[in-house]
């Protein structure tokens, strides 16, 4: 097998780069070790498109964050995914915090963040956010901040890149990068060798290990875990903006925000962990998150029963501190896109631009395609077509779109089949594409249906259906099977 260029990693960074590169006449291959796109840090973060006042002026992060923020609305529109500019508030409840707010505003202005405003009228603050702590003194309002569904974004980017010619190979783990005379000649994967002269390392928390395969060792990545709660959609509207506490030197703090689907999300904390697979939530961590959130929104104390799920994500904290986006003389053909922690989601489109620039500088001749199509059709949602009062005749002819499978999120069988046709091959893959199983009962009712539909559409035995690939089989045995064995 052969490709002009290989992208390692199917997170938000790898997929934005893939889509950007699909504009050019180039044979691009994206490899991802997991069973689906977006199963790394991209599936487990806050989903905020930051305004850009947090990062220190002059850093790569600061520049790319603000640029990324301006790029997202158009990309989201082209891909047919929701992006909501809710605006964000950094909330000060103590006198000493007020200074930090002023500092943040100055920083934001230096970073060219538009529209920053300090609201110091307490009455107005409480009117705009009725559930916020009544200790609130003032807030820094950033109108350009918004929210997105990060995994939906990565999946949509990958689909669009694919339609424009990028090849995607899942469950393909890069084990080594092959070099000859200071130049890349290929990669070795669990599925065999692939020849190529260019590799882009977008491997998230593993990007130091990929980089080391090329002998580039000047940084290391520490996984820093953040834990979250997601609460029931009945709390939609409980907060209207993304609410941040005043940041500490270590983190932007525990956020209370809504998600694009209308749930409430609370988190993250920040704790170094030893293992890059350590996605476990912990009791102290969860307490820290909930208590942190209650400081901003005290009414949450009575809402613990409305939690529908908890999860954790890992940040790729580099020893350098800033994003590492570099090409090298040795080996030629290697580009690192490493240490992409927050605001990596926000910055991703700007990161992709920068990567294209690096490639252009590297004398690769990038010729634009004529037939590049930036738009992607999203999956038709039966429930949306009803609420906009469209008539059923506008719906696809397939009657499956009338058969509701997920009762909490109102997902039809047609949508689930469509998700499978678009590449979902696991439970989580369906969940991230359709929201089936993501609602208040967390798959209690739709699990048996999803197993049936997945095994029918993929022509697989039920026991081969997994939650998220590898050995995560959901129903590993059949009834009476073990009794038979004993005989």
């Amino acid at each position, binding site marked *: 097998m052969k490709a002009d260029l290989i992208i390692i990693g199917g997170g938000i960074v790898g997929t934005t780069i893939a889509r950007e590169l699909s504009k050019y006449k180039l044979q691009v291959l994206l490899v991802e070790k997991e069973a689906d796109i977006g199963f790394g840090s991209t599936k487990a973060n806050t989903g905020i498109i930051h305004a850009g006042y947090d990062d220190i002026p002059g850093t790569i992060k600061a520049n790319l964050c603000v640029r990324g923020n301006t790029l997202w609305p158009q990309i989201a529109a082209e891909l047919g995914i929701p992006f909501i500019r809710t605006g964000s508030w950094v909330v000060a409840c103590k006198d000493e915090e007020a200074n930090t707010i002023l500092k943040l505003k100055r920083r934001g202005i230096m970073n060219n963040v538009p529209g920053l405003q300090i609201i110091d009228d307490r009455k107005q603050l409480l009117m705009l956010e009725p559930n916020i702590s009544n200790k609130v003194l003032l807030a820094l309002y950033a109108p350009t901040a918004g929210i997105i569904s990060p995994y939906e974004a990565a999946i949509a980017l990958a689909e669009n890149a694919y339609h424009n010619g990028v090849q995607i190979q899942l469950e393909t783990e890069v084990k080594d990068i092959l070099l000859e005379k200071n130049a890349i000649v290929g990669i070795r994967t669990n599925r065999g060798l692939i020849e190529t002269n260019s590799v882009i390392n977008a491997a998230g928390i593993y990007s130091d290990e990929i980089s080391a395969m090329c002998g580039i060792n000047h940084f290391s990545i520490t996984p820093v875990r953040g834990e979250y709660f997601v609460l029931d959609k009945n709390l939609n509207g409980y907060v209207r903006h993304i609410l941040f506490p005043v940041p500490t030197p270590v983190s932007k703090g525990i956020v209370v925000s809504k998600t694009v689907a209308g749930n409430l999300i609370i988190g993250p904390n920040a704790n170094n962990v030893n293992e890059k697979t350590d996605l476990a939530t912990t009791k102290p961590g969860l307490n820290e998150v909930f208590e942190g959130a209650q400081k901003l929104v005290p009414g949450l104390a009575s809402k613990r029963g409305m939690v529908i*799920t*908890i*999860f954790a994500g890992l940040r790729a904290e580099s020893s350098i501190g800033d994003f590492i986006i570099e090409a090298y003389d040795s080996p030629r053909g290697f580009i690192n896109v490493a240490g992409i922690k927050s605001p990596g989601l926000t910055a991703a489109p700007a990161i992709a631009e920068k990567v294209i620039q690096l490639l252009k500088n590297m004398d690769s001749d990038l010729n634009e395609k004529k037939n590049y199509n930036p738009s992607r059709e999203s999956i038709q949602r039966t429930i949306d077509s009803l609420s906009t009062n469209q008539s059923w005749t506008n719906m696809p002819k397939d009657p499956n779109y*009338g058969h509701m499978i997920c009762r909490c999120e109102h997902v039809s069988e047609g949508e689930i089949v469509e998700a499978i046709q678009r590449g979902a091959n696991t439970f989580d893959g369906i969940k991230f594409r359709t929201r089936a199983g993501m609602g208040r009962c967390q798959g209690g009712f739709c699990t048996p249906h999803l197993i049936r539909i997945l095994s029918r559409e993929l022509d697989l035995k039920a026991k081969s259906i997994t939650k998220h690939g590898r050995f995560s089989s959901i129903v*590993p045995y059949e009834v009476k*099977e*073990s009794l038979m064995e004993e005989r």
Partner: protein
Amino acid sequence: MQNIDVAIIGGGAAGLSAAIEAKKTGAENVLVLERGEELGGILQQCIHTGFGLHYFKENLNGPEYISRFIKTVHELGIDYKLNTMVLQISPNKKLLAMNSVDGPLRLQAKAIVLAMGCREKPRGALAIPGTRPAGIFTAGTAQRLMDVEGYLVGKKIVILGSGDIGLIMARRFVMEGAKVEAVVELMPYPGGLHRNVVQCLEDFQIPLLLQHTITNIQGRDRLKRVTTAKVDKRFTPIPGTEKNIECDTLILSVGLIPENELSRGLGILIDTKTGGPFVDEHMETSERGLFACGNVVHVHDLVDHVTWSGEVAGKNAARVVLDTFPRYKERISLSAGRNVQYVVPQFISGKKPVNLSIRVKRPARRVEINIGNELAFHKPVVRPSEMVVLTLRENQIMEKTKLTVIVRKRR
């Protein structure tokens, strides 16, 4: 827009008995809307026995019990639609439903009966820390996978929660050749019916760990291990009591929540204690002509009571259609006092006999149940898992506006 007399949302035990009673009372055009692929609701997956001891004075399994009602539905020519999800109800009794044959269905009813049943609490509601591997199921989901779909979800099982479904599943797993390592219960007493503790755990020597909880879940792809710990009086895990249990499956049987999303959308008043709508002795909700019955009102432990509540709701829904519905001016509210979680119905007229369903908070022996100041009923034992049903006759009711129900030691 199709016009119907009584629309029934949900074709489980509650919905079917409501439909039958509505038809028998004289409503002509009764329609049951069920999103499942067959009538019967949750009972279709309950293949164990223990159903109908009160209603039929027979010991039936779930499918046997419900098939009797399905047969009557057919005999009476009651209309129903399967695979049909009701998406919205408005207070003027318009409904929006959806299926693959009709597409969106818009209906206008004269009376509506809510019989949507309940759903199970997921892991998130308990915020059990740890990883998120495959192999964690709510008990009802595991039951459906096993007894309807034919899959065994695992071979080394830990069950959290000793509610009835968890107990029944413990026995089912053993019968299918799986090993149940433990049933873990937070409270100092089991959550399910006493008969289920004996028949499902004790008879199979399955350990029941009372005053224990699960403090951690491990495993990346499939579940590998859970950690249990003893809890103190405030339900906090006691450090040093942690024990790891190797297992591939964790079953959660930690409570049911009445499925009231449609009711909330409608704006009817919900009792935070039951999680279901406030109802009166006719099973009418706070919205006129809108009735509710079965597990959507409060979680029942016996289907017999579900059926009875359905009959009351169906009969009165038909009376609304026929214009014979008795509306009383009197309204006495019933409230939960000492050692009482809730009482249903929450409102009565005091003009006719009524069955009260009372759920106690804690188990107790030799108790007296007081309704208002005058009335006392004696019971040898009460348990939270076993609903107390008392019949209150109109001549027993003295108070005019408010009755408090309390349970206390007999003097």
